[in-house]
């Protein structure tokens, strides 16, 4: 599905990713954890094609395509999805309109016939039950005046409707109460299947109480410092990131670094 080899990326003159290696197979769920500033969100941004990063060495292949060679919308149309840490508000553009545009952009790219409004509403309503989102939000401007939880549900709805091959959740769990967290987890678990993969980027272990990953990686200082199975987060819970960053910083982390 996704193969990252020795990926280096910098912002302005400072190198953030210093040689990432990661293999995500079909149907696998990988969690990427790590302290603030370790490069987690940069990795998500680089994979989705956000501007402002300079890619140094390394390569990324996504289903046999050179991912870094594609525009962000091409990556989306190839089946890559990014759920945002801070979902943006788009005044004047309704949610249903956004979903329709997104679905049809992907269908067009894949050479499929575009769907009309009627077909789409059916599809979207079916997916809405998955996220527990209220119907009325469909006709409101994208994320405008939505609560934090509603915004994240909206991201999950977009994911459910677009049915990506690989979904990257960039700290989707941050700032969520436990009910909203369960909704995110539930959406991922329901969409999880043998052909769809996930990368969950998270600062905390708590999302992983609800989504059991196949592999967990700890990112530190632009490298993957440790990889392990689903039991790794629990170890981290006990030790924090102290073994990575030194005891002082770990203490700061624990008392309010976030």
């Amino acid at each position, binding site marked *: 599905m996704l193969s990252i080899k020795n990926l280096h990326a910098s912002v302005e003159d400072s190198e953030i990713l210093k040689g990432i290696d990661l293999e995500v197979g079909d149907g696998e769920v990988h969690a990427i954890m790590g302290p603030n500033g370790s490069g987690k969100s940069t990795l998500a941004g680089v994979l989705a094609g956000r501007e402002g990063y300079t890619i140094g060495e390394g390569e990324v292949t996504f289903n046999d395509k050179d991912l870094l060679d594609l525009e962000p919308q091409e990556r989306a149309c190839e089946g890559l999805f990014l759920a945002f840490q801070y979902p*943006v508000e788009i005044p004047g553009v309704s949610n249903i309109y956004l979903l329709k545009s997104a679905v049809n952009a992907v269908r067009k790219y894949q050479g499929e016939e575009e769907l009309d409004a009627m077909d789409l509403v059916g599809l979207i309503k079916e997916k809405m039950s998955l996220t527990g989102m209220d119907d009325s939000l469909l006709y409101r401007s994208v994320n405008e005046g939505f609560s934090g939880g509603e915004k994240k549900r909206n991201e999950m709805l977009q994911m459910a409707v677009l049915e990506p091959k690989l979904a990257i959740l960039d700290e989707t769990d941050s700032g969520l109460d436990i009910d909203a967290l369960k909704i995110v987890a539930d959406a991922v678990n329901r969409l999880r299947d043998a052909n769809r993969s996930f990368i969950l980027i998270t600062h905390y272990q708590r999302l992983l109480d609800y989504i059991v990953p196949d592999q967990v990686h700890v990112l530190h200082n632009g490298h993957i410092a440790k990889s392990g199975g689903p039991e790794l987060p629990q170890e981290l819970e006990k030790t924090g990131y102290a073994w990575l960053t030194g005891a002082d910083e770990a203490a700061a982390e624990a008392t309010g670094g976030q």
Partner: protein
Amino acid sequence: MTEISETVGHFKDLYSEGEDRLPGGSIAWVAQRRQAAMNRFAEQGLPAPRNEEWKYTSLKPIEKRAFALPEPDAQEVSLGDIDTYVFDDPGAYRLVFVDGAYSEQLSQSVELPEGVTVKPLSEALEAGDEALSRHLGHYADPEGTPFVALNTALMSDGVFLHVPAGVTVEAPIHLLFVASTGADERILSYRNVLVAEEGADATVLESYVGLGEGAYLTNTVTEAVAPEGSRLAVYKLQEEATTGYHIAAFEAYQGGASEVYHHNISLGARLARNDVNDALDHEGAHVGLNGLYLGEGRQHVDNHTRIDHLQPRTTSQEYYKGILDGRSRGVFNGKVVVQPQAQETDSDQQNRNLLLSRNAEVDPKPELEIFADDVSCTHGATIGQLDEDALFFLQTRGMTYAEARALLIFGFANEIIEGLPIEQVRYRLEDRLMRRLPHAEAMEE
């Protein structure tokens, strides 16, 4: 002789030329008002750059041209030429004017409630309508700009609407002012007088369109009277040729518990200036002013609004949005005056601007003058660019950069468009916006 007085001299010549030829020339009160207006214009001349109200809008291109009175019969315009500007609704009343004169052939009349008068100003003047003589020039002239005076002196036609007390005219009345391909170097002076009596209700849609590429000047004035309990809604859709000049004044006077709504959409013209003024002169009167202005290329669009809260418990709500691209320039000047006796005034004014290019410019200026102490007056003005995060977000949802850009611009404008109560006007505007935005085809249904 200075340049200004040359301009004045030229317009004086036009006035003399039009004295016999323009409507109402043989009617004493009309001739008097024209004469008085010409004198006022001659005293003032065109506004100079040092005039604060015209600080950002240079009238040089207008000064340097010798506009002539129109020769309406010289141009044949067919219904086919204007079919993208009319509304299909067979129930819609439509008055069409070409190059300053009424065209019966292009107009469409339908049955209206008893007692309602809708007719070309030229006919209403000849018919000696009492309400018209009472109101014409009563609101716009006293404090109007020199262009209002020039309009009164040179007005060639327009519409007189009179709705009797308690009568509601359901369907919007469409006024379509067409500058033909032969309008180059002409001055088109339209005067509309909209009179609702107590408790009356009507909606008027004013469209200004240009068919050619001439450097013509439309100088139009609309006066609206909304006494006790009445409601008037005016939609102004300006789609002049981008080589043309458009100067417009809207002057409304309101009685107790009346409502006036003015929706001001400015898309065309090389230079467009709107003066929108409203006087809330009795308790409980409410005015809503909405505006959307688009500029591209070297377009210049200037909106000046003024709301006078003259009596207690009057309310106003104003929302203007601008989208400026290319080397265009926008001006928004929103004045709200609350007089000492206008206690418990409630007023909100917002102006938002979106700059799409580094060379586009906008000058927003809210101006609040509050002389009463128990009031709620809020205002805000912003200038922004497209949100990079939102552009990236839309790209990650499959849209190209150009499509994402078009969608964000559309969304910005749509906040004004979706607030328009008339569905046909909304669709028309959406259509105009789509055409204007590159790569917006994907948004069409």
